[in-house]
């Protein structure tokens, strides 16, 4: 683009540099991913794809990923929508508590959830199944976690909070006059919900469907922990197995790309359905705002909502916390078996323990800070259209949404494990993965925040002689502090939770907490699994709670 570069102003260098960094961050791995998928020992060919479509295991994996995605999306969105409506639009009791629990789910990595579910719903000895058998006298448990069904249950528990956030924001933004009118004309609360509120929230609903689908097919830890033992494979677990020593990057790339294509297709469908509004929902200021009175049903509603968050949030985490302080001997319960030994072990004896915590913190902090900075500049450029390629910048920021974390990691390995820059085996490659994968969230929150800041203030500064860069630094950035901070926290928490990219990128010198948890899990050390998980949770809870303090309940909303 010679045009903008030809009449370059000093501050333009910053915009151009940011755009270039974005292009390298996002496009380079995608390019290498595509090239790798066509590369074999004998040069460029379709052999990797031919192999993928020949092996039955890979086909099964694709089918299972699809089933997992659809089922998790349908159930996840249904549950998320129900809870969001109850919390935001009704007079159900315990609304605040329910919302905190659902938001709390964002602190918990999906695979940690899956591991607790092994303890809860193992077919023979899971606590829930034991209770079921004791209550009913049945010889068989109720849930077999080691199955596709079990995997779906865990995936639903993992993705429904995402649907909740989309729907919650939509319901809060919508005014209630039409619903009230319908009620006055005799419609039941339920009918008003299905005929008025839900159709009004259609953009959010579609976004929720798509995002939960994407989140579910991108899961790695849960399928690895509970799918693989039951011979249920999905694309991500197969990609991982291709990375076992010696890694077959080309095959992994060929298997990953269909996943990225499905994602792109879905996002395209979404655009067709709801136009250019993307993920933002209608956020009008609202006129009259009345909660639906559920009458006596509100206690039933509270019971159902309470049960859902109890089963998906309270129970799995309680099991973990308990296990992290308990020396299990499988005899009778004894108070004397409470111990700090598991913590002592992971902090002092396990050689990957402390380094993994340090590595996680360093990479997550770096990713969050750089993502917030890049997102701020990118949002500013794309909103204020100060340069011609502003639209491209926004596109680059949102593109990683279309690439599942593990697929992106395959691209990073293909890019940085040979050639000019070798980053494989360093913390940088992990930070790059976290940064890029979560950039869309930081961008969305900066973008939304920027939308609410009128350009008058900037213009005033410009008139008084400040450069655009200075206006951004001194006027705009402080004004959208909340948007920035919310983006920062989302990137930080997501980085800490990540397993699917980390598992391909870590080496023994760059273990992070999530990979360390998988390692001790594979070594069958449940006490260490629990202790490390609780440490991870604690870090995330502190980060999110601090954000909640500063930003209120919109802390994790992509449209904050």
């Amino acid at each position, binding site marked *: 683009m010679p045009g903008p570069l030809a009449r370059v102003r000093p501050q333009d260098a910053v915009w151009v540099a940011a755009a270039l960094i974005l292009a390298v961050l996002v496009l380079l791995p995608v390019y290498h991913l595509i090239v790798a998928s066509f590369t074999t020992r004998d040069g460029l060919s379709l052999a990797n794809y031919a192999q993928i479509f020949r092996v039955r*295991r890979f086909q099964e994996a694709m089918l299972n990923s699809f089933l997992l995605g659809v089922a998790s999306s349908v159930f996840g969105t249904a549950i998320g929508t129900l809870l969001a409506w109850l919390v935001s639009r009704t007079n159900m009791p315990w609304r605040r508590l329910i919302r905190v629990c659902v938001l709390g789910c964002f602190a918990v990595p999906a695979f940690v959830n899956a591991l607790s579910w092994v303890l809860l719903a*193992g*077919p*023979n*000895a*899971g606590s829930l199944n034991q209770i079921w058998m004791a209550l009913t006298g049945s010889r068989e448990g109720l849930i077999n976690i*080691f199955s596709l069904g079990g995997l779906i249950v865990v995936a639903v528990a993992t993705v429904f909070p995402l649907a909740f956030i989309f729907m919650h924001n939509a319901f809060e933004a919508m005014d209630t006059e039409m619903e009230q009118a319908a009620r006055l004309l005799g419609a039941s609360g339920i009918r008003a919900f299905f005929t008025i509120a839900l159709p009004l929230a259609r953009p959010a609903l579609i976004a929720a469907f798509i995002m939960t689908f994407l989140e579910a097919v991108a899961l790695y830890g849960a399928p690895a922990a509970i799918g*693989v*033992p*039951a*011979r*249920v*494979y999905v694309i991500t677990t197969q990609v991982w*197995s291709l990375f*076992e*020593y*010696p890694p077959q990057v080309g095959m992994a790339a060929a298997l990953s790309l269909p996943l990225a294509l499905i994602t792109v297709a879905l996002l395209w469908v979404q655009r067709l359905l709801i136009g250019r509004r993307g993920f933002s929902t209608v956020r009008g200021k609202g006129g009259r705002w009345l909660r639906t009175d559920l009458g006596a049903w509100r206690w039933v509603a509270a019971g159902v909502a309470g049960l859902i968050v109890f089963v998906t949030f309270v129970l799995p985490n309680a099991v973990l916390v308990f296990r992290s302080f308990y*020396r*299990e*001997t*499988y*005899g009778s319960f004894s108070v004397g078996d409470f111990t700090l030994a598991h913590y002592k072990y992971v902090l002092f*004896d396990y*050689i*990957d323990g402390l380094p993994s915590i340090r590595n996680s913190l360093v990479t997550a902090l770096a990713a969050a800070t750089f993502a917030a900075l890049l997102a701020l500049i990118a949002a500013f450029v794309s909103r204020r259209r100060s340069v011609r390629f502003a639209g491209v910048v926004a596109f680059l920021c949102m593109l990683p949404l279309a690439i599942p974390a593990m697929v992106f990691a395959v691209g990073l390995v293909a890019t940085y494990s040979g050639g000019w820059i070798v980053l*494989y*085996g360093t913390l940088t490659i992990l930070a790059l993965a976290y940064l890029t994968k979560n950039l869309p969230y930081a961008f969305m929150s900066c973008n939304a925040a920027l939308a609410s800041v009128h350009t008058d203030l900037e213009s005033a500064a410009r008139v008084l002689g400040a450069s655009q860069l200075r206006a951004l630094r001194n006027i705009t950035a402080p004004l959208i502090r909340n948007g920035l901070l919310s983006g920062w926290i989302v990137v930080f928490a997501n980085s800490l939770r990540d397993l699917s990219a980390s598992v391909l990128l870590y*080496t*023994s*010198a760059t273990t992070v907490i999530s990979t360390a948890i998988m*390692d001790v899990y*594979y*070594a*069958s*050390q*449940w006490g260490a699994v629990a202790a490390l998980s609780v440490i991870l949770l604690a870090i995330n809870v502190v980060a999110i709670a601090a954000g909640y303090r500063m930003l209120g309940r919109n802390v994790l909303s992509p449209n904050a």
Partner: protein
Amino acid sequence: MFRKMRSAQPLARLVTWIALAVVALAPSLAVADGITPEILAAAKAEGQVTCYTSADLVLANKLKAAFEQKYGIKVNVLRQSSSTIYNRANQEFDLGTNAADTIETSVMSHFVDMKAKKMLQPFAPATANLIRSAKLSDPEHYWHAVKLELTSMNYNSDKLKGDDVPKTWKDLLDPKYNGKIVQGHIKSSGDTALIAYNLVKMYGWEYFEGLRKNNVLTMQACTQVELVARGERLIMMCDYSQLFTARAQNISVIGAVLPQDGVFMLAGPEAILAKAPHPNAAKVFVNWLFSPEGQTIYVEGGDAASIDSPEMKLPPDFPDLKKYKLIDTDIDDFRKWLPGGVEKFTELFGG
């Protein structure tokens, strides 16, 4: 002048003799000398040794504690399944981020491959000549088997009693064990690879097809004491040391059966990595692992010892191995079989 020459002669002769002796003994000095005071001093200066091991964590920690107490050299233990250890060491070697000093897995072929890749350095422990069989060592002393695991069926002794306890591998195909068995994965577990190799030799792949029909659960590692103790599965196909691991954790509900149709001897080699950051401490550690003292700890952990020494004592309830059909594995045949075996096993059990 003459006198002077005479007086110089004995010294010259001595020097010659020493030189000759050094030349003659050099190869054996290099490989069969255990440790010298110099090595020990250097090891203490290094202060620590990092060992990658597939030995059970309880056993690994016992070895760590005993060695640290004796030498004051810190042992960093990384316990993972055999293939994880092997992959990690390879990855570190390729990247040049060598963190480990010693490596031990339950797969002998790993060591043949690592030696070929020049990842190992030769070192012969002082007791190398006591190792039971020539098959258990590399002739050039790049590795030696440090333990012999005994493959076994471990079970939940609270839920399985009397005739319900399986006696042979073949018993596991009985429909009454449907949904009750757990095994490791051939890709990651050395035990499982050896069990699969031998059972396929004895009964053909029909055996594993039968296990699949019986809904065996396939985890990464076969060491699923907790899963069995909890009653999630009742039988695991693993090794005898799991019984002692459970005891060390005060878990009393685990029993172990050495199968009547064959106990496969799983040799677990130990070696020092070529790029060990603490080479002297590594030598002291490996030398000690092969001493009667180190070997006794292995035996107390439920393995058979690799060396034959009267100084070692067996635990009182250690089974009389003469009563069983002990089966050695031919390493070359196993290596040839493994890639196809992995393929077939993965087809049956995924992963």
